């Protein structure tokens, strides 16, 4: 059987190589932190994992149709409290074994296992109760309540039972670097890159033989490398580089539907920032027009700008965005002064002091964001300095971000960051006092109450109204100073054909990608 699979894989690869075979090299925002789907934390993680694994159900990137590459049949059971999925036959894991219902149920059980410390799994525990197998092809996934359209929720990635000793899956298993999936590519993480090799399978026929992911460095170097055909794609092209790439007939810019907004999170636990008036003062200290101009390259009033100011935790096009809350495009230092004085701060020698000590703001920014918005950190620092704040600016590594900042253990006063969303734009975890992503443990009874309203909402109007209220409340309490939404654009060489970019997951339609010889 193993020999048969090997032969099949070799033939598949050979055919692909004869057809269009070539290596597709691309620059990512960062090296994926983990290739284990249970531990995806960054968009780079999600994108890389999409190449290696199959999700139970996925959405067609063109027609938005809900489909599955692994399920041949599904039906509701137990009066809507369960769904029986019948798997297609002939699907092989990258280790040669067959995909069975045991794998589906193993994945569900691993997600339900408390010893699997996965934030991704935590969400599924909210509505999945159990999974039973009925023969090798049928898995019955049980829910804790009746769900409308349960298929839409079952977008989890299937893991191979044979690769794990138990359902307790820890992040440091070798699987995180050398995963086994049923996706179109087998992946292997190196120290500086990730290599993906096409894997011919019953349900995938990748035309690209090999893909190579590398962390992009300086955006200018990335751009020139792409134009010189030393690399075939860049996942995230910062706005200043876009005109150069658009001017080239050898490169095509691709829209990537990702809802991203930028913010400066304020640490309300720091003595100087506890008073809401200080946070409000900081909000009017920032001159967003200047920040945008110098870091993104967008001038005030520019039409069809990729970067639009926001006043709350949603992009302006979102139904949750409360357009009654105005944005703050320019600074108002006079207002800032009076707010700070009202909060008990005093200005001595041009510097703000609290209880006789100079206020020093430690400002951090996720290091990788510096490529997308160059110099934003120093520009924010400069504006704070000009307003009379002593400041210390530091870049934060992705790992420190996850394990210190997101753990609520950082001692920063201000943190510049970006959040990205897909269809679901829920922000409860960011602002609820017990939220998993509440980086400074911001606590507000008012906010918690509104978030409870959101959770209890029966109709979408109630839900939207709750978030409109939240938006308004946050614009007063200001745990974040909201900056802007920024469109995401990729660039690929024109030799790369059929490159449909899926919203959020990016490589969902990778089977259609090819390279012109």
């Amino acid at each position: 059987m193993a020999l048969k699979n090997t032969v099949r894989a070799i033939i598949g690869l050979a055919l692909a190589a004869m057809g269009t075979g070539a290596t597709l090299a691309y620059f990512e925002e960062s090296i994926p932190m983990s290739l284990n789907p249970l531990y995806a934390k960054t968009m780079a993680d999600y994108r890389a994992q999409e190449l290696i694994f199959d999700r139970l159900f996925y959405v067609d990137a063109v027609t938005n149709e809900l489909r599955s590459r692994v399920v041949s049949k599904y039906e509701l059971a137990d009066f809507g409290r369960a769904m029986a999925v019948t798997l297609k036959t002939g699907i092989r894991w990258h280790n040669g074994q067959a995909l069975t219902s045991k794998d589906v149920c193993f994945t569900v059980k691993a997600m339900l296992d408390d010893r699997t410390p996965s934030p991704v799994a935590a969400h599924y525990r909210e509505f999945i109760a159990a999974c039973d197998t009925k023969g090798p092809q049928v898995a019955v996934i049980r829910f804790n309540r009746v769900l409308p359209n349960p298929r839409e929720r079952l977008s989890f990635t299937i893991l191979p039972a044979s690769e794990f000793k138990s359902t307790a899956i820890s992040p440091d298993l070798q699987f995180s670097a050398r995963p086994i999936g049923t996706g179109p590519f087998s992946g292997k993480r190196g120290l500086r890159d990730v290599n993906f090799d096409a894997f011919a399978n019953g349900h995938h026929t990748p035309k690209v033989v090999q893909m190579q992911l590398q962390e992009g460095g300086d955006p200018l170097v990335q751009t020139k490398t792409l134009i010189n055909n030393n690399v075939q794609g860049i996942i995230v092209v910062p706005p200043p580089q876009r005109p150069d790439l658009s001017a080239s007939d050898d490169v095509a810019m691709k829209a990537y539907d990702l809802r991203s907004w930028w913010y400066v999170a304020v640490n309300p636990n720091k003595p100087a920032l506890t008073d809401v008036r200080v946070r409000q003062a900081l909000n009017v200290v920032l001159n967003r027009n200047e920040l945008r101009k110098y870091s993104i390259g967008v001038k005030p009033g520019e039409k069809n700008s990729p970067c639009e100011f926001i006043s709350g935790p949603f992009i302006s096009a979102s139904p949750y965005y409360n357009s009654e809350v105005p944005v703050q495009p320019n600074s108002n230092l006079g207002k800032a002064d009076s707010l700070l004085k009202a909060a008990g701060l005093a200005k001595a020698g041009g510097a703000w002091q609290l209880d006789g000590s100079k206020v020093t703001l430690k400002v951090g920014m996720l290091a990788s964001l510096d490529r997308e918005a160059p110099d934003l950190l120093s520009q924010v620092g400069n504006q704070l300095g000009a307003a009379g704040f002593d400041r210390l600016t530091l870049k934060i590594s992705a790992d420190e971000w996850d394990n210190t900042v997101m753990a609520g253990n950082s001692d920063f006063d201000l943190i510049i960051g970006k959040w990205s969303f897909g269809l679901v734009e829920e922000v409860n975890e960011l602002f609820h006092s017990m939220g998993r992503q509440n980086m400074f443990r911001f606590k507000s009874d008012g906010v918690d109450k509104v978030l409870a309203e959101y959770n209890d909402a029966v109709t979408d109007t109630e839900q939207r109204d709750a978030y409109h209220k939240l938006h308004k409340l946050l614009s007063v309490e200001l745990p974040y100073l909201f900056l802007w939404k920024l469109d995401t654009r990729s660039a690929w060489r024109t030799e790369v054909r059929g490159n449909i970019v899926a919203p959020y997951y990016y490589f969902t339609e990778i089977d259609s990608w090819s390279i012109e010889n």
Partner: protein
Amino acid sequence: MRLRERNYGVLSFMSRWPTIFAFAAVLGGCTSQPESGGEAASVVLVQAVPGELLKSAWPARMAHDDQRSRFESQDGWRHMFEYDLSQALGVFSVEADPQGLSRVHEQLSALYTQGALLAANATVGAYGVGALETDPDDLAYLLGVSEVIRGNREAALKYFEEVSKLPMTFQPQAKAWHRALSEPGLPSLEVLSAISGSLGEVIPGQDPAVSPVPHFKLLEKSEKARLMGANDPTALLTRAAWHQAAAVQVAPESDREALGQFQLRYGLDRSRSSEMHGAVALDDAWLFCSSNLAASDAAFVAEAMTQGIAAVSKWADKSVLAAAVSPAIQDGKVDPQVVMDAGFGLQKQIQRVMADIAGAEAGFHRPFAQRARIAVLQAGMIVADANDQYRDAGILRLNALERMETVGIEPVFALSVAAWDAGNRSPLRPEEILHQFRSTYPALSAAKAPLDALHLRRSRNAGPANAVH
């Protein structure tokens, strides 16, 4: 194996130490290269359409200074070039350019037609497919109107009958629609105005005032009994009909037939598309910056909308677009990748022709030629749609929208993409598109409420997701 020749990095090996020290200067210099810097040796140039035919395309003809100067000298055409219909309307009404003015009204009519389709698709997606027990009963009327717009007259009639059985707000409108559906085609401006309110006398050069949204507030059948904002898509149809009337009113008598052909591209009434169309002699005012590269393209597109690949073979020797698309017809199917290649080939071919005519390359050649490329993608999309290749048409549709980012987004086409997306129950891209154009064309706000509802309902049922950095 890698692609073609590999040029190592930006600099060649080892001999460039001094360049490192001048790093910023070198790269800074590169960014200010003249446009079309990527005219690389690697580009494979193909002759997409016969040379003689190509010369009839407006980008090629605009390479002649004398033919172009007419458009360069008027602000109205500058706004048309930038796809700013709102500004162009104001300027053309002052400059007394009947053809320009008629074309703007025709475009605005198409814009609001697509806005209505967007609202209709979102309404059905949210309140029809995604109906909840708490939805107000009055939504049946909005669903009925939406089904009319989507061309499902029988479904619409059922909804209108449902409305008439219940003591609800929309009985008069539902009855009016019911009556109107006894006639083929969409109702006239008068009928529509009677349903959604009059927009006033049709005066070319004007844009009627927009009534505030939401048009209605409906009570939800939930414990909290919240008021749900709802808008009648009829209002958008009425506005479209108003602009259509204005376009006809101001268009010279000789151009009326052509105007009829243009309206088919984004129109809802497909019955006329199945007719045979003849090429109409056209002034450049109808073609400049449009997706019809030559006069015969309008007729080809009108036929292709229902006849698909049959229209391609029929028009291949007369229409630039048909000629460009024809290599993509393989085994009775449209190959989207070949359409894309043909579009790129046509762009390069036009650029060469323009350079030949002008004696040298000029800055405007590439953006003009890129519009021709987009026109090919749109033509391929129309043919694929008519050929029941829904997904392939979608690929071309999205590709055309992407290519527009370089030359400016055409609002009518963007709205049509939004409407198509909403028809697929995909709310994100339509939201972005609507947000982009809502401030310039405030009447489009009528589509926002159902689109929001579609997003919220899809989101509530979607798989779990975290905010990700």
